[in-house]
């Protein structure tokens, strides 16, 4: 009995400090200094509606937009997940075939591998610069713009995620598409 009440007291103290206190302090710091990202990096349109979250991929099928990587959960922002398929699985071969058809890839112009592979979260907001340039021709045609202008826009939006520690430059697909709409409406 003595040991139960002692345990209870320690439980209450640790809950008060580590749940209530710790959460309150981290919440206060985050909301005071980085409220935008702390609330989910939401992007609002001119009319105030939320169009998405910067780090969360959304679905694009229109030829006038760049497309993100495939998603095993159809870009469900409230139920993320990957394919969890073995890299030897024939399911992945089938999915890759449909993506080849979608992007119109050929052996002469092969699809960048990440556009055939789903991310772990199903919400990967990025594609590589190469994978964006790969889509420039399609986007340019659909918008009646020269490929050079589209490629320039892509290059203006890429960044190296880890500076000199990463070799491949990436681009946020949602940001790129917002820039497309803003520049070439």
């Amino acid at each position, binding site marked *: 009995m003595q040991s139960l009440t002692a345990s209870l007291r320690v439980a209450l103290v640790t809950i008060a400090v580590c749940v209530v206190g710790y959460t309150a302090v981290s919440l206060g710091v985050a909301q005071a200094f980085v409220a935008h990202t702390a*609330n989910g990096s939401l992007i609002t349109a001119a009319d105030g509606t939320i169009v998405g979250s910067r780090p969360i991929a959304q679905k694009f099928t229109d030829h006038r937009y760049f497309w993100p990587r495939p998603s095993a959960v159809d870009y469900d922002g409230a139920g993320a997940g990957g394919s969890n398929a073995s890299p030897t699985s024939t399911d992945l071969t089938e999915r890759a075939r449909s993506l080849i058809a979608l992007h119109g890839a050929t052996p002469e112009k092969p699809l960048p591998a990440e556009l055939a592979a789903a991310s772990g979260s199903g919400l990967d907001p990025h594609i590589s610069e190469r994978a964006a340039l790969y889509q420039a021709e399609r986007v340019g045609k659909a918008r009646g713009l020269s490929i050079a202008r589209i490629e320039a826009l892509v290059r203006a939006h890429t960044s190296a995620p880890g500076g000199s520690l990463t070799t491949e430059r990436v681009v946020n697909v949602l940001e790129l598409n917002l820039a497309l709409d803003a520049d070439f409406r």
Partner: protein
Amino acid sequence: MDALLLATLIVGGTALLSLPLGRYMTWAMDPTGPAPRRAGLERLFARVAGPLGHEQQGWKQYAIAMLAFNALMFVVSFAFVALQQHLPLNPDAKGAVEASLVFNTVASFTSNTNLQHYSGEVSMSYLSQLLSLMWLQFVSAATGIAALAALARGLAGRPEMGNFLVDLQRATLLVLLPLALIVATLMALGGVPMTLSGAASATTLEGVQQVIARGPVAAFLAIKQLGTNGGGFFGPNCTHPFENPTFWTNGLSMICILLVPMCSVWMFGRIVGRPRHARLVFAVMLVLLFGKIAVAVWFETAPTQAFAALPEVEQVAGNFEGKEMRFGTPYGSGPLWSVLTTCTSNGSVGAMHDSLNPMAGLMPMVGMWLNATFGGVGVGMINMFVYIVVAVFLAGMMVGRTPEYLNRRVEAREMKLAVLTVLAHALFILVGAAVFAATPWGRDTLANWGPHGFSEILYEFSSASANNGSGFEGLGDNTVPWNVATGLVMLLNRYVPILLPLAIAGSLARKRRTAESAGTLGVQDATFGAMLLGTILLVGALTFLPAAVLGPIAEHLLFAQQS
């Protein structure tokens, strides 16, 4: 090659950081000698623990106090998760959680495992996440650190092992809390959400509705990584852009995964008064760690096998399935993280382990089977202690002397307990996997065929028994048989490998000190390091090689044959 550079930076940087922090952790956990600024704090800890707070406990009393507190942790958290639909802080109106899933979840977080048969953003209210799960992430980690402090005191030859409830408060409030506050702040600054608002609803550029789950992620993330817990706020854990938004948060997470397990080794060395012995153990762990990293990175450079027959897809180095672009090359962060998180019994994932190439996917399993390459906070070093006892015994037999460890004779009783500890882990994994592979309990829940299906089952039991928590997540594991079986394995193999080593330490502490002579085996010498490494690999290989051959190795060979 930037993958190995990244590994060296992360592991090396964390090792350097662990030196001062290990000293601090020893000061926090074992205040011997004059500590004037601490006196008030120590009185407070003792007062909170009530009349028992001043008691000095032997190993049995210490173990009983630990079990009593852990039972209370289980009951309190169970109640809050089971009743979440009636409780506040539930902005997205999460409903009731099924009973066997509540059992599994609470067993999982109580045992510092964080195996998740649910998806956080789908099933759990913010109250469940913070009050039940995050609280357990603090106190279950603290339980492990306390247990190691007690073990070390026993081995140092002190008659008593300390006071569990005081140790628990020291570990929670002096070690984990300050670190968590720093890391949660850094994570929030790095872009991780920290809000109590419910999910946001967006209308995408193409006019589709997208619900975007968010929440108090930064706080949860910090302690999940620091306490080798690993449970994700979101289903896909640290692959989720909110739980790991940038290359830099990814690196910080990996540092946090390794940090306290590394500090635990230094704390052990300081309390037993053998810093050179601790350095040797640290070196043996580093060798094992880099071995696993090198193998995982090497095999992950192979392109995705499923695309090999498709000339319309670029055959580039690295398998992108289950990985995010922002962390760099697919053979960089993914396999590195998978090794770090399983060596340390953390279990958070930065890439989907189910989608790793077969031999790269074997390395996380090896990490969980050995479970002592730094290992869980506190308990990893306890597991290593068991291997040390076995190695000391084997070495003693080889040279024909009575084996000794830290000036105490290791005899039949200690050996029985050590072997039992090693065997328990193997039995839980192999018997569990055999039963589920042979019955519809396991077979009907697989996402992949053939050897990879067997790997999914083997991985799940390895993860439960090692208190790791990662998974080959294709497995449809939210069923009553899986929830009950893994729940029991997690609990049993949480406490067996703490109680039996405490018993060994208690038994050694009662023996007379033997005098050191020229013939005494030096547990700080390179020879003993090689002996220890050999023992770990031999025990691991003998026990788990047949299972590994049936799973990942068979899949790799089939895959090599086809290409």
